[in-house]
């Protein structure tokens, strides 16, 4: 699968299929800090991403010194 890490300007290719929660753990990301997007849909932590699919992991954390 192809994982687009938005705002980090990078993509990673992973072999095999995975549940979203396992994927985030592997990438070292907190589920609370991102949205996982496939096309026009949001994925929940129990959904499985197939090997041929592309997903975007979009950070939701924003802000400066406020």
């Amino acid at each position, binding site marked *: 699968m192809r994982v687009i890490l938005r705002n980090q300007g990078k993509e990673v290719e992973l072999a095999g299929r995975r549940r979203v929660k396992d994927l985030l753990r592997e990438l070292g990301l907190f589920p609370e800090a991102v949205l996982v997007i496939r096309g026009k849909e949001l994925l*929940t932590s129990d959904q499985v991403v197939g090997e041929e699919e592309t997903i975007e992991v*979009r950070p939701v954390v924003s*802000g400066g010194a406020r």
Partner: protein
Amino acid sequence: MKCIKCRGPAVLELRRHNAAFCAEDFLAFFRKQTVETIRKWKMFTREEPVLVAVSGGKDSLALWDVLLLEGYDATGLYLDLGIYDYSKASRARCEAFAAERGAKLHVVAVADEMGASIPEVKELTRRPTCSACGLSKRYLTNRVALEQGFPVVATGHNLDDEAATLLGSVLHWAPEALARQSPVLPASHPGFVRRVKPFFRISERETAAYAFLRGIDYIVEECPFSRGATSLVYKEVLNRLEEHSPGAKAAFFTTFLQRARPAFERLEEVELRDCARCGQPTTAEVCAFCRLAERVKRAGGDRTGTPVRSEAETDPSELRGLGAAERALP
């Protein structure tokens, strides 16, 4: 995972609510939470004009969207910070959002008011960028609201923002900041308008999900000056806690409001006077915004003289003569 309302497939799980929602039910839940917060905290009514401070990001555009959908009289205010392509892109998002909905948007350039853009202020005065930015936002949102006849300014600060700010204040035991942090700051002086945060109970992930599901074209990229910001470290720590104990962030902030803030508020007694330059309330002889503008001028960066710009229906001549809000300043 199934939606707790309709039992259809869920698109978002909210662990702290022990719930999951389909898109339609989440959007309804989100709107209801926002409207309930506005009502319960007496933030504003549908009869009052509200100035929404918009940045082009997910939170402020989601807030403006909800307010318009729910029938509030909401006008946008975009402050152009002059941060290169980032400001151009975020301003374009706000203008497109307003145009699609037929909503009114005021645009004010910080450079016209301060004498320099936010990156130039750093160059000219050495004042940290985020500090100059925060000061300008507080001052100008208040001033434009006063001048344009808005009794209240609404901002898109969410639960994560508030919890991170609180954590920072607690780590430094800053009593003034702890006294001031509230979802509603009343207009405690004729020179201040009310400031409200209708999303203070809603997490950052929820506002992002709302914006995404509503198809709002917000700026996902972060301000280039926010890299390495301490508030982001606080948010990471809080998200680690949230991962371990869902609801930790909300409990941290709401119990502060219930149990601790009243005590700090009693300690906080500030004497305000009129700024000698702009006439707005301040604790000093000259308010922090005017002091910074003077430093910019001394450093040779003054570009003021251009009136406050409004792209809607403002007569620039009406925008003069009112000044500062520096309640968040020492």
